[in-house]
């Protein structure tokens, strides 16, 4: 089964790094196949950018996302530009402080987290993408959570490993709480 994931935001948020970590987790630690492609403008920071990840048990023929099953939005512009692509029944995940949207659709499975705020509380808003990855590891099954954490720790600078590890755990715990809350409502 091929999974297409689209991650959107603006330059400087680590959008491409987020896609890279996801693909690395699938390739190196889950021993599956993954591609990560990126799109960005000529600006170094602030312009809109996205990364596209395809994960599969088979070698990947075509490395572009056409109908993502999972979309992760770290900016309002990224959300608006791309949300129509998300497949019916797809998972929409966003940073609740960065995306203020009234038009979430019923056919999506929606999750949100104040990832940037959590990262600031942990000492560096640059880690918002790592908080988000922890959250993703809780709310959708793309790669094994341990694989994802290993890929995070392999990627970040050695001196920041503890902080990033805490950021990942913060996102994962928050995701776990949301899932528990939903389970309680259903019973």
């Amino acid at each position, binding site marked *: 089964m091929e999974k297409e994931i689209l991650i959107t935001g603006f330059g400087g948020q680590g959008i491409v790094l987020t*896609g*890279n970590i996801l*693909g*690395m987790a699938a*390739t*190196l630690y889950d021993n599956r*196949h*993954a*591609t*990560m*492609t*990126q*799109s*960005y*403008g*000529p600006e170094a920071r602030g312009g809109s950018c996205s990364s596209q990840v395809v994960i599969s048990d088979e070698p*990947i*023929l*075509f*490395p*572009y996302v056409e109908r993502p099953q999972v979309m992760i939005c770290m900016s309002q512009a990224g959300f608006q530009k791309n949300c129509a692509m998300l497949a019916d029944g797809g998972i929409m995940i966003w940073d609740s402080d960065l995306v203020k949207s009234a038009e979430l659709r019923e056919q999506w499975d929606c999750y949100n987290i104040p990832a940037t705020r959590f990262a600031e509380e942990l000492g560096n808003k640059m880690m918002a993408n790592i908080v988000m990855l922890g959250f993703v590891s809780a709310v959708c099954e793309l790669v094994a959570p341990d694989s994802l954490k290993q890929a995070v720790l392999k990627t970040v600078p050695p001196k920041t490993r503890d902080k990033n590890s805490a950021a990942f755990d913060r996102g994962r715990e928050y995701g776990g709480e949301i899932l528990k809350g939903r389970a309680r409502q259903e019973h």
Partner: protein
Amino acid sequence: MASKAVLTGTHFMNGDEACAEGALAAGCRFFGGYPITPATEVAERMSRRLPQLGGIYIQMEDEIASMASLLGASWGGQKAMTSTSGPGFSLMMENLGLGIITETPCVVCNVQRGGPSTGLPTLVGQADMMQARWGSHGHYEIIALCPSSPQEMFDFTIRAFNLSEQFRTPVLIMADEVVGHMNERVVIPAEDTIELVERKRPTCAPEAFLPFRPEADGVAPMACFGDGYRVHITGLTHAENGYPAMEAGAHERMLNALVNKIKMNRDTIISYDTEYLDDAEIVLVAYGISVRSARRAIRAGREQGLKLGLVKLNTVWPFPEEFIRDLAGRVRALVMPEINLGQMVLELERCAGGRCPVRLVGHAGGAIIRPAAILNVINDLVKEAV
């Protein structure tokens, strides 16, 4: 900690990085270049890795000088490379010709973006394919490879060095932005399993040495500066002793030698893979990132019952003329997806020689070919045939 030249193991890296690692694994120890999107990551990685390995990285003042530095390094005995994109590739053309006429092994990687001119710095193109063939003035043969994945960026870079050493000529890697920037699994094999080719060196007495006299394989042994042989190199037409000889007879001898060493070794140089060709009626001929678009279109088309096949060109120059001519006589049509408005398709058409229809699925640049666009052209071909 001593750094290793060959990072044996499994990696998740982008094509540019894989190109740099391929170069290092091939023994490249000189990089002269100028950063340019989307090739910067090649230079960036070489700038970090080469000093650890005792090699030299120089950021030159521009791409004219970059290309010149490769030739000097190669004559100094090193395996040398540069990486660039369209605007830099244009600047390299003059000294690329100097490399060809002086028979200097070196490797140039062009990570293509949209052009002409500054064009689309961050977006994909495949529109330098004819420039790769004929961009420098004068008549010559060239070798150009087209990787379609980060793994092939690694593998083909090693092959590019081997071909350049074997045939004493600059070799081009015609990559593209998507292959360069895409991350995917790259498996780097054990160092002792990587086959490397080194340039032939002279064994004769120094006084008997003629630096441009080809041997039976069409290639002359190369004495580098400092080897103890007397060597004169020039961009002027030269005799076998390397000294200028500007008259028609000398030019004919020299040019034929330059062209023949590639032509007579075509079978060694040309490389392509085929998929689903046994029963294919319509065959996609693709190179670089467009191979990936073609593969998706083939899978979708086969699900609809269309008998589609693929020829994946690993080398684009020299073009596999005899193979295409034969293939064109056996299939209903040939289709080429490429991110330009018609370049390699001209060569495909020429080689097909009217034996079957040839169609282009072109794109001006800035995005890869959508598989649906390929299927539209194929469906039109099927309708025409009914």
